[in-house]
């Protein structure tokens, strides 16, 4: 789950990280009031889950409250990468001496959370990694001990020659580490970490990505989810415990397991079709999930055929069959459906489907070819 900049900043502030004052606004009038309260030049920053906000015109420097109102009028409601800007952060504009990057991510290879720090901040770290990789210091944190002060200090001195700034950065890194762990992050970054002309070290922008698996035990963090910034079908899927990603094709896919779901999409493509979505109903299934999956898929008008590909393990195929029957009784399908299932409780599932007028195959390639043909308007084989 991505947090907005203002949410990440609110969290990091509670851990003691120095961050310029700011408030969130949803209207130009609010923006003007906040800017007036700050009483100095401000930044008005679009709060959407998209990179490149600045380039898209979503981040503006405003010398006074009236300008802030004017710029906010343009930003609120604009679209950045198909996301509508509903909120802006109004924050004190800081004079910037130098810009550095400080981030933590969980790394598969070292199996640890790893700090990445670079004195080349203010731009995308991917760009730094691609062009001047030697400017990035990687520091894996031993999860058994956590980040130690001396490690933070080493990184601080990597960023700054000045001891006071190095120490201030080290303190911020220790605070960022504590926030990272306590908030269940898979990524947390400060970019840029700024040294002001006065020599203060402050966080001017922040990003946090929460591990979805943490949300159950961190209700306060889970409550930060902003559904207005997500596609409605994906919100719907998540609430039904489904993993769903909307794509551009016309073969609606319902699969159990991410690997098989991807392989199914690949096979749709292989046989000349285009998948309309990625949809994983996950392990431990129940009929309700299938009902929800069908509801979400059939809501997409571009879907011309539905393909179920279920290989039962922990998922019981009879649960899936029951779900299909229940869902289609309540809302009869308007597009053809191709069902492939095999594995746990397969005989029972086949019987349920047959008793309710569905046919089902047990061969994946056959089923995919059939669904592709149906989506193209051909007849089922």
């Amino acid at each position, binding site marked *: 789950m991505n947090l907005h900049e203002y949410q990440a900043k609110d969290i990091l502030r509670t851990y003691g990280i120095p961050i310029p004052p700011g408030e969130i606004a949803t209207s130009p009038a609010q923006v003007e009031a906040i800017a007036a309260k700050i009483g100095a030049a401000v930044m008005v920053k679009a709060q959407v889950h998209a990179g490149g906000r600045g380039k898209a015109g979503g981040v503006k420097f405003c010398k006074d409250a009236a300008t802030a109102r004017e710029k906010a009028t343009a930003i609120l409601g604009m679209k950045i990468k198909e996301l509508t800007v509903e909120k802006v952060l109004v924050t004190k504009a800081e004079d910037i001496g130098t810009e550095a990057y400080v981030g933590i991510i969980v790394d598969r*290879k070292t199996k640890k959370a790893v700090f990445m720090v670079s004195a080349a901040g203010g731009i995308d770290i991917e760009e730094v990694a691609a062009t001047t990789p030697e400017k990035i210091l990687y520091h894996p944190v031993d999860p058994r001990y956590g980040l130690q002060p001396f490690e933070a200090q080493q990184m601080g001195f990597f960023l700054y020659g000045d001891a006071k700034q190095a120490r201030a950065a080290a303190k911020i890194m220790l605070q960022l580490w504590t926030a990272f762990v306590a908030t269940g992050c898979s990524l947390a970054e400060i970019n840029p970490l700024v040294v002001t002309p006065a020599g203060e070290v402050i966080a001017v922008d922040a990003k946090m*990505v929460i591990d979805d698996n943490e949300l159950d035990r961190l209700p306060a963090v889970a409550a930060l989810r902003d559904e207005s910034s997500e596609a409605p079908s994906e919100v719907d899927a998540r609430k039904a415990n489904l993993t769903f990603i909307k794509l551009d094709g016309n073969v609606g896919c319902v699969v159990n397991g991410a690997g098989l779901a991807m392989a199914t999409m690949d096979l749709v*493509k292989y046989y000349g079709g285009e998948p309309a979505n*990625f949809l994983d109903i996950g392990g431990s299934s129940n009929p309700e999930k299938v009902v929800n999956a069908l509801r979400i898929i059939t809501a997409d008008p571009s879907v011309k055929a539905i393909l179920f590909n279920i290989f039962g393990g*922990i998922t019981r195929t009879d649960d899936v069959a029951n779900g299909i029957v229940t869902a289609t009784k309540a809302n009869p399908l308007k597009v053809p459906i191709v069902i492939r299932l095999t594995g746990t409780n397969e005989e029972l599932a086949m019987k349920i489907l047959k008793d309710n007028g569905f046919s089902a195959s047990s061969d994946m390639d056959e089923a995919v070819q059939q669904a592709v043909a149906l989506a193209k308007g051909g007849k089922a084989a």
Partner: protein
Amino acid sequence: MSVFIDRNTKLVVQGITGRDGSFHTKQMIEYGTQVVAGVTPGKGGQKFEGTVPIFNTVADAVKATGANTSVIYVPPQFAADAMMEAAAAGVKLVVCITEGVPVLDMTRVYPYVKETGARLVGPNCPGLITPGESKVGIIPGRICTPGNVGVVSRSGTLTYEVVYQLTRAGIGQTTCVGIGGDPINGTNFIDALEAFERDPKTRAVAMMGEIGGTDEQEAADFVKHHMKKPVVGFIAGQTAPPGRRMGHAGAIISGSAGTAAEKIDAFKSAGMGVAQRPKDFVQLIQERLK
């Protein structure tokens, strides 16, 4: 022969009385696995299905039954503790089926289990099966048949798909190992490949990878430099949208974006066979077993 599990595997099931745990324990017993104990705190002293003794703790179970392997079917918020409990109790193989374990939990579990000397498989994996001998986890037994192909996969159901097709074509398996799809897991491709290379019965290996990370590239490198046995690989997700969990920052550290194309190239340059579709494994393996 086989890898990791065989007829001597003595299994303790953590979460034996839960919905998934009880269902799959029955399946494992039916398959012939020696399920010697179950653990559900508070149900110590009872018996599962009238036969398998239940204990309050894994330590009690190991002490009483000599269990050497554990399989975990507990909810995600308890899974890290369950893995550590099993390793601390002295079992040599810990298989965690549970999906949804927080990745920061795994950063702690991984070194903990390693320090005990136990092997961890998973989490978020289907477990293992040595056809005809033992099944630990949830891989459906009837799709497997004994033979001499090792199978290792990051995916659950995709593994079933491939094994199913192999079996239908008369190609049996030594052991199928589902290592799980989480960013941090206990056993990786190289661990399994190494074991298959050492196993006298295994003559070829089928390996199913996915987009994301660099495990497959490293596995290809291992195949190139350390394996004499043929390996056929597959990558799921050629058409998938970029993964949304980790963003790009993870790829910076790994020095790779983890795309399907990169991985397939790595397979090719390691001299591995590359399956385009799951069903292609059949022919590619058959050619290599000749």
